[in-house]
């Protein structure tokens, strides 16, 4: 019954079949067809039902299969490489909503939601209101106490799967004045509500990508909810969301890496087959370079998100920082890489059907990874006050992380949702490793002058960043200056660099991940003002064989290098 992660990965991959097969009901042709029509991918969803996909994000102690977040991510990527919209549309909302339940729900609530999800039920996550966007603190939908009921008024918009969810985790204003305790999370049973005129579903929202995802909305007009249907404590909405979203803001970008993986496979496939003169375009150094750059970006994103996912198990009190940095940086790199590949595909990218028609779908489907679930700039803004704490604490007396953080094959303790915190309180073991172990890191890179140079550049930037942050005025009023966002950008890159270095050190020196080539490329591309130098051709040549052999052998382009 309890299959291991590799067994599940294999089973899922085999079930999904050959994407290029024209009559594969879950192949590329089928995925493109539902995308064109904007319909849910029914065949794909049936397959995931049969696989029991939702069990992957129900914690094991509640009967699910979630023991390691990085494993859940691998399973979801297996779907996402084929069709990110299927992965997200099928269960993204359930994942987001139920994570809040695992974080703050009573044992009975957790039990009930776990049973619902394991039984194939869907949960919607109702946070967003068009009028307030990222400013969730001002969300207006209200729940007023009236005796032993809560009276709901207002609307939520652009909510995945709302029209077909059994349960809605609803973020509502429950108090005046506006502040950290003015909102609560509520559990609204949508099956019980059918026919109630105090609640109305809004028309579907159409979108440019993720077109198979059913985006809906809901409007309440005096709807009565039993007062007991509060998730966690009354007034804890902001707190719970802030804590639970550390998991989802790490995992969703991690899963989104699959979109780049899929896009890179299309690009490799075109580049190695499209004729130009006597050869193929992959013979052109510039084409190889774009492909290798995308490969390196994918490795960076995977290193960062995998370490982030492991941090949630190992350092749950510190992940406000890492999850915000991931939510900002990873989608930025993924989108940049896919856009750059699109220029390589040229006219092939622009054509929606045909052998590489999936590429433009990957590009469109990746977009919400950027703005969804917290804007990149809002993520940076979250980091600024934390950096000011870090100057005084974690950066002045840095503590290195437990080496297990970087040893990717090592098992992890259970995810302790209750330990997720509102703030990292000036602690940051991921950045701290870079500071505390700089000598050991440079020593490990002793054999490679270029690697030492680029590590040195990051260390110097960290030192400069600490000085600048130390000089920031404390507790200012009004909006953050633009330059503060740049500091948070630099910090995010340093954290990603630390993750890459950690993965490199934590791996077997003979493996690809233990080689200086990928790390040098990764760290170079992470520098703020990356400017390709004379060595681009040499660097491309050093990584091309790895990329090419993975493509030929049908292995994924991420760290785990699974069968694709």
């Amino acid at each position, binding site marked *: 019954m309890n299959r291991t992660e590799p067994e599940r990965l294999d089973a899922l991959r085999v079930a999904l079949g050959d994407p290029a097969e024209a009559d594969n009901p879950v192949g590329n042709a089928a995925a493109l067809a539902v995308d064109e029509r904007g319909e849910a991918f029914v065949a794909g969803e049936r397959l995931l039902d049969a696989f029991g996909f939702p069990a992957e994000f129900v914690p094991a102690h509640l009967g699910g299969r979630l023991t390691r977040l990085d494993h859940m991510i691998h399973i979801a990527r297996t779907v996402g490489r084929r069709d990110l919209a299927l992965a997200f549309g099928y269960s993204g909302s359930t994942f987001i909503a139920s994570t809040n339940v695992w974080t703050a729900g009573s044992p009975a609530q957790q039990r009930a939601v776990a049973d619902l999800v394991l039984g194939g039920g869907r949960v919607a996550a109702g946070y967003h209101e*068009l*009028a*307030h*966007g*990222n*400013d969730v603190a*001002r969300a207006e939908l209200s729940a007023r106490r009236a005796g032993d009921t809560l009276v709901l008024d207002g609307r939520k918009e*652009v909510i995945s799967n709302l029209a077909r969810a059994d349960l809605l985790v609803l973020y509502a204003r429950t108090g005046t004045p506006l502040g950290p305790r003015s909102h609560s999370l509520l559990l609204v049973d949508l099956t019980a509500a059918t026919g109630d005129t105090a609640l109305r579903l809004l028309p579907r*929202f*159409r*979108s*440019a*990508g993720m077109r198979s995802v059913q985006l809906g909305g809901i409007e309440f007009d005096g709807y009565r909810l039993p007062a007991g249907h509060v998730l966690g404590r009354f007034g804890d909405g902001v707190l719970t969301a802030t804590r639970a979203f550390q998991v989802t803001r790490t995992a969703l970008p991690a899963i989104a890496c699959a979109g780049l993986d899929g896009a890179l496979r299309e690009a490799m496939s075109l580049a190695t087959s*499209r*004729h*130009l*003169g006597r050869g193929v375009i992959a*013979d*052109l*150094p*510039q084409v*190889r*370079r774009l492909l290798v750059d995308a490969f390196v970006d994918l490795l960076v994103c995977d290193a960062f998100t995998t370490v982030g996912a492991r941090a949630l198990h190992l350092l749950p009190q510190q992940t406000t920082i890492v999850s915000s940095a991931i939510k900002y940086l990873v989608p930025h790199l993924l*989108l940049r890489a896919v*856009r750059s590949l*699109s*220029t*390589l595909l*040229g*006219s*092939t*990218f*622009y*054509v*929606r*059907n045909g052998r590489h028609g999936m590429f*433009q779908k990957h590009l469109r489907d990746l*977009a*919400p990874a*950027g*703005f969804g679930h917290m*804007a*990149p*700039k809002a993520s940076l803004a979250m980091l600024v006050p934390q950096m000011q704490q870090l100057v005084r604490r974690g950066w002045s007396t840095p503590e290195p992380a437990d080496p297990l953080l970087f040893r990717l094959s090592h098992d992890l303790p259970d995810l302790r949702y209750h330990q997720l915190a509102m703030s990292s309180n000036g602690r940051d073991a991921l950045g701290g490793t870079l500071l505390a172990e700089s000598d050991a890191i440079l020593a490990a890179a002793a054999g490679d002058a270029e690697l030492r140079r680029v590590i040195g550049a990051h260390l110097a930037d960290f030192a400069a960043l600490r000085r600048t942050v130390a000089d920031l005025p404390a507790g200012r009023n009004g*909006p*953050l*200056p*633009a*330059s*503060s*966002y*740049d500091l948070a950008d630099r910090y995010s890159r340093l954290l990603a660099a630390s993750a890459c270095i950690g993965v490199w050190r934590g791996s077997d020196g003979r493996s690809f991940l233990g080689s200086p080539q990928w790390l040098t490329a990764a760290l170079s591309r992470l520098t*703020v*003002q990356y*400017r*390709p130098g*004379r060595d*681009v*051709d040499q660097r*491309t040549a050093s990584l091309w064989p790895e990329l090419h052999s993975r493509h030929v052998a049908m292995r994924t382009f991420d760290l785990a290098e699974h069968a694709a």
Partner: protein
Amino acid sequence: MSIAYGPVRRAKDWDALLGDPDDPDVLFSYPRCLRLDDTEAFPDDICAHLDELGLPAYYVPVAHGGLLGNFDDAATMVRLIARRDLTVAIAHFKTFLGAAPVWVAGTTTQADDLAATVLAGHPIALGLTERGIGSDLLATRTVAEPGDEPGSLTITGEKWLINNGRRATVVTTLVRTSPNAGPRALSLLLVDRRLAGSGGMTGTAKIPTHGIRGADISGVRYAGAGVGPAGVVGGIGRGVDTLLRALQVTRIATTPLSLGAADQALRLGYDFCADRELYGGRLVDLPVVRRSLGRAAAALFVAEAAVLLGCRAINALPEELSVVAAVVKAFVPSVVDDLIHDVGELLGARAFLLDVLHGGRFQKVERDHRIVGIFDGSTAVNQNYLAGQFSRLGRRYRQRRLNRDGVAVAADLARPLPPLELHRLDVLSPNGCSVVQALPDLLADPVIVRTVPAALLAVLGDAVTELHDELAGWRVTGGALPAIAFDLARRYELCFASASCLLLWRYNYEHVTTELWHEAEWLLCALTLLAEWLGAEPDGAADDLFIRLGGRRPEPGWGPPMSIFPATLADLR
């Protein structure tokens, strides 16, 4: 003294003729174009309306009875249409691309005949690409063999991914006229659907595309289509040579499409940020948001300067277009793709949802514009072409070779452009690139030195010198170009853009007194951005410049194009 900058005034007239684009009852309006995109329907009635208004005259040189005397005017028209809708602009303007080889290399009779066809509103297509063959023209498989009549040719084969493939009356078609390898085996033919013989030439199925979904992107199948001697452009075996010269003009002339797209995107960005309430204020009140807007506006100005210099160079520096065209076509669409992407980040979900903000207009312009960097020579293809001229460019720079008067005419909007002489185009530029080669003088110019901070000029100066040292030492090693060549090409483009900004400012600053020109605001923003793209450390002090520019919201509603130049003649005093 004032500059009678005609194009801007003409644009105003046309805009008035076309009506308010936000009004759904107007034929050529945003709401209608969005609906056409949604249903992938061709904008027939809008194109017909443009024909009635006389737009095709701008595609025909004055010498052949049209209004095309210079590309300032033509560019303005393209930009104007593109800021309403790129599908329409690309579908309509394609006729110019199809006709250009005839203007460049055709006989007078050919040109006069084709002019009559264009002026009558017939679309002309350009058939180069074939299935499985992109930019590799030498792999052309469509063949033309001697027909029954003396001098006539019979064509067999298929062109694929052709704009207006089903609709065009004439398809300017690249064919193989000899089995030998090499460029001399290819010829350009005017294949006229009215003369091709029934069934000899048919349009093939519409190809679904990522953007410009309503356009007729299809193919042409030739099954014995006949062409008489009068249909051979530039002579048998001259196809590639003719194209290389015609493409110089068309590549420059398509870049105003990018300006129109940038205009749409940026305006949506300014309006959204000004209206959007967030965190108890307006989004535009966040300095970081304002900076993003300012940077995007500066990017538009950079692109505009490069386009303007490029377009005016067609008349003023025709011998140098092999460089100018490659630079401008590689540079402008990619700058604008990035600009649109960055504005999209400001719009968040509204850049993605179809029904929430202006009917999802942003995501349409984002998808539509991506084609500009692909067709008519992609960025990589143009950079490749530029790289072929590196060592000459390095040498000419060192020799300080400069067509001084040509540069001045190109840059000084008050000076009339010399007549259009498309037969003067050359496959390679003997002089290098006067615009870039003017940089040492510009960077030392007393007025510029007084205006632009020394540190900024030093960054630019170093970048220019460093680049040209590399170019002068550039050796063709045989085989494929190394990737570094593409980075050098990009830096060359940045130098061209820097020179364009400096030239336009230097030659016109005394005559334009609008806010953007006060204390050289636009110039400093543009140069700061260019310096950053050239690899300079971002300058924190520059934030204030961008933030100020980001506060300059264009007039809400339908105003003049976003431009460094003011809209009305009165403003130009």
